[in-house]
């Protein structure tokens, strides 16, 4: 090959790089390893972290994933394909994405879905940017955002949108109910607000009065953005129907649909909206069309919204999205169907209820809020949450999330959740251990290394 090119050696091919820019030997890069050696190294590290019984939810849930999901998604034709720019050579991915869009609109009751965002939090940021563009009635760049929304979502949205001078205005939650009471919106009646964010369930697992909140938005020409758990949608009323007319935009974290916990990613954000504002939508969208012979086919559409066409005028900079996770979600949704999703959701809900009931027998332990919840709950503890969680972790139980950093006003409390995967034995063990920890409170600290598994 070198001969064909007409050079003597490979180094000649780099002759245009100025000599003083050539780097040396990269000595601190470790030498090559075989696949076996890497698998031993990473296998050891993966084992090192144990597989504690996980009662943390807080935006990432340990659900059963049918074996078929990943066995099919990792087929090379899905796994190693690029974004389907060449539609005719990508009908597999494109039809799947169209099916996905159809499933997400069915689940959320919305008209249109895109083909994914990075994750739930960044999807919210994009939803806010989208709302600001779409709300022609509003000149302000103010967004109402409940304090009861996931703190990381609020942070991420803030970090992203603040560069475009958008202001996030926090709505307090009801100290007894844990929900965003409609009264919290009163100060903003008639104000120029671009959008209102409505989580369901909210960070605490508490159910919001979504119809009332959405209605307020409609009355005040404020666009409404739902942030929902897609699994919950099998049980709870869908954003497309909230307040009668439904919300304008709906987003959320797709992880519960076939993505393993996997340390936080890859997951995927979903983003749906009314068809009327689809041209403000960021990200890829797949449309059904016809080929030259009049046969059905699928293609990327409305690409004029996107950075590769519109560059600085695009609706977003997103290019690579979370395609493979959408592949898994689509297969997952097809396997579960509405009935399977609902059974899963119900099992989680019932498991968490059972856990909370058993925990509440421990003196000093009680649910923090009195409004209906779905599938996750905040629990007050009679000792420092962090210490309790640390002690549980030493028993290989992750009892929940300590919320004191984000909500100091709520005292010592943990957000806990038992998905359908938690067995009665694990739940019982959690209850036992927590009650021992609490009764031993003040005793000697436990050892903190995870058990290998």
């Amino acid at each position, binding site marked *: 090959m070198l001969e064909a090119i007409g050079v003597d050696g490979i180094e000649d091919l780099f002759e245009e790089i100025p000599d003083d820019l050539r780097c040396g030997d990269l000595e601190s890069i470790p030498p090559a390893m075989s696949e076996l*050696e890497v698998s031993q*190294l990473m296998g050891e590290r993966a084992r090192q972290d144990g597989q504690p019984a996980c009662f943390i939810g807080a935006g990432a849930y340990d659900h059963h994933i049918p074996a078929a999901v990943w066995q099919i998604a990792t087929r090379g034709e899905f796994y190693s394909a690029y974004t389907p720019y060449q539609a005719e050579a990508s009908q597999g991915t494109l039809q*799947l994405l169209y099916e996905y869009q159809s499933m997400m609109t069915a689940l959320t009751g919305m008209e249109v879905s895109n083909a994914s965002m990075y994750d739930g939090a960044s999807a919210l940021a994009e939803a806010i940017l989208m709302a600001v563009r779409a709300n022609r009635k509003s000149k302000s760049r103010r967004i109402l955002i409940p304090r009861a929304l996931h703190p990381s979502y609020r942070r*991420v949205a803030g970090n992203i949108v603040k560069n475009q001078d958008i202001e996030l205005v926090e709505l307090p939650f009801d100290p007894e109910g844990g929900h965003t009471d409609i009264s919290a919106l009163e100060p903003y009646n008639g104000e120029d607000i671009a959008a209102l964010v409505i989580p369901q369930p909210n960070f605490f697992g508490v159910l919001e009065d*979504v119809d009332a909140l959405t209605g307020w938005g409609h009355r005040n020409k404020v666009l409404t953005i739902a942030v929902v758990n897609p699994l919950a949608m099998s049980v709870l009323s869908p954003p497309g129907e909230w307040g009668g007319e439904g919300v304008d935009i709906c987003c959320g974290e797709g992880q519960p649909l076939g993505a393993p916990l996997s*340390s*936080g*990613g890859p997951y995927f954000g979903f983003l749906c909206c009314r068809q009327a504002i689809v041209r403000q939508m960021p990200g890829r969208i797949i449309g059904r069309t016809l080929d030259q012979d009049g046969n059905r086919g699928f293609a990327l559409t409305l690409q004029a919204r996107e950075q590769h066409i519109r560059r600085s005028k695009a609706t977003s900079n997103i290019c690579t999205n*979370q395609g493979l996770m959408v592949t898994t979600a689509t297969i997952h949704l097809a396997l579960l169907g509405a009935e399977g999703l609902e059974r899963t959701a119900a099992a989680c809900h019932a498991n968490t209820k059972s856990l909370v009931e058993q925990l509440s027998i421990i003196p000093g332990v009680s649910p923090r809020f009195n409004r209906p919840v779905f599938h996750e709950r905040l629990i007050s503890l009679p000792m420092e949450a962090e210490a309790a969680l640390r002690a549980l972790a030493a028993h290989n139980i992750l009892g929940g999330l300590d919320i004191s950093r984000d909500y100091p006003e709520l005292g010592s409390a943990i957000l806990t959740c038992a998905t359908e995967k938690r067995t009665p034995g694990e739940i019982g063990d959690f209850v036992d251990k927590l009650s021992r920890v609490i009764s031993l409170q003040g005793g000697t600290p436990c050892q903190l290394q995870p058990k290998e598994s």
Partner: protein
Amino acid sequence: MMLLIQEQSKPGRRAVAQAPLRKADTSDIPEQFRRRRPAALPEVSELQVVRHYTRLSQRNFSIDTEFYPLGSCTMKYNPRGANEHAMLPGFLARHPEAPESHSQGFMACLFDLQEMLKELTGMQAVSLSPAAGAQGEFAGVAMIRAYHDERGDTGRTEILVPDAAHGTNPASAVMCGYKTREIPTGSNGDVDVEALKTVVGPHTAGIMLTNPSTLGVFDRGILEIAGLVHEAGGLLYYDGANLNAILGKARPGDMGFDVIHMNLHKTFSTPHGGGGPGSGPVGVSERLIPYLPVPMVTRDGDDYSWLTETECPRSIGRLSAFAGNAGVILRAYSYARMLGREGMSRVAEYSTLNANYMLKMLQEAGFEAAYPQRRATHEFIITLRTQARERGVNTMDFAKRLLDYGFHAPTTYFPLLVPECLLIEPTETEDKGTLDAFIQAMRTVQGEVAEDPELVKGAPHTLPVKRLDDVRAARELDLAWNALAED
């Protein structure tokens, strides 16, 4: 035509084993919150699902089945070992909020990769959290902004972007509240330094470059450019999408860049998954360290701990709810360890060798190179403007016809400044036999353009669908299946 999974639905059918066999009670959830009608999701058996998606998958081109010389996208082989390693049960089961006591193994991988990327790029610190290249760009530009803002240097409102830049560059700059200004390319493919001099100045927050550029050449004036921009008080952003070309050979940090993103799904060979996920770590020079997005991993002796908003108060913050695309990061880590020190420069060597070989052979076959006087990097550009003018066969037609020969088309119509262009990137993982077969297909299509242009204009002919009507797709929007609309 393949039915949609929705079209195969029949009421009451289910993949029974996939959900709890008994329905738990949820009657404590008040009626007002409840869904009235079940969502219209497909009702199908497990066999139907498996067969449907298995068959759908076969309607894709992919690296695992076809040569995929998609310029700028670095479609190289995704090692199967990396998939296995990243999907080890311990990693999959780890909750993102798991305590550090139960995360040391995972964090060690992240830390190691941060260190390797620092060394490979010549930067001073790395954060792995951005979810893709574009989010890395956002993070990078946001850091540039945070830097100027913190210094009270608020008059800098512009980001300079060469006309060859990827669309994400200007879009990211705008998302960070900047205006963009285009810099033209000189006729030799390098940035037009004279033009740059006329626009760089006190309004310049920074410049976004990729080097080698998307024109498939290494910008020889990079040090001069860096000097100019720095002198004017701006910072330099490096779009790492082309890092593959210089891995182990040259480092952006040494070229004077202040911030860089890498595409792990390109240079570090994690799969593209039909559109993602990716991962877009950012590396920075000394002065931008405080602004890096969180979380990151730090080490103290043998203990790894997280750096978050608390430890990094000047950070631009987090850009996703958790720590980014951890599974992609683990795949890249596995890849990097398998390659090791020796393997890194092989990446640049073989990708450059393959590209230059193909360029040369295609030139010999009569194709016109966009920059014939230049050495190709890991990719290069062919322009079909003569064919287009003389035979009325445009680049899109040519590309579609390649599909009929079992090759994914190169990137078309990008970069925008080269008319009727094909951006071709063979990558280092392909063998000569495959390159030669592709060159032969290029020749064949060239012959067809001369002899039977209609054949090429009507392509593809052998795929599951014929040429699709994009205009109709955009005009008669049909974005979701609707049971009612169908019958």
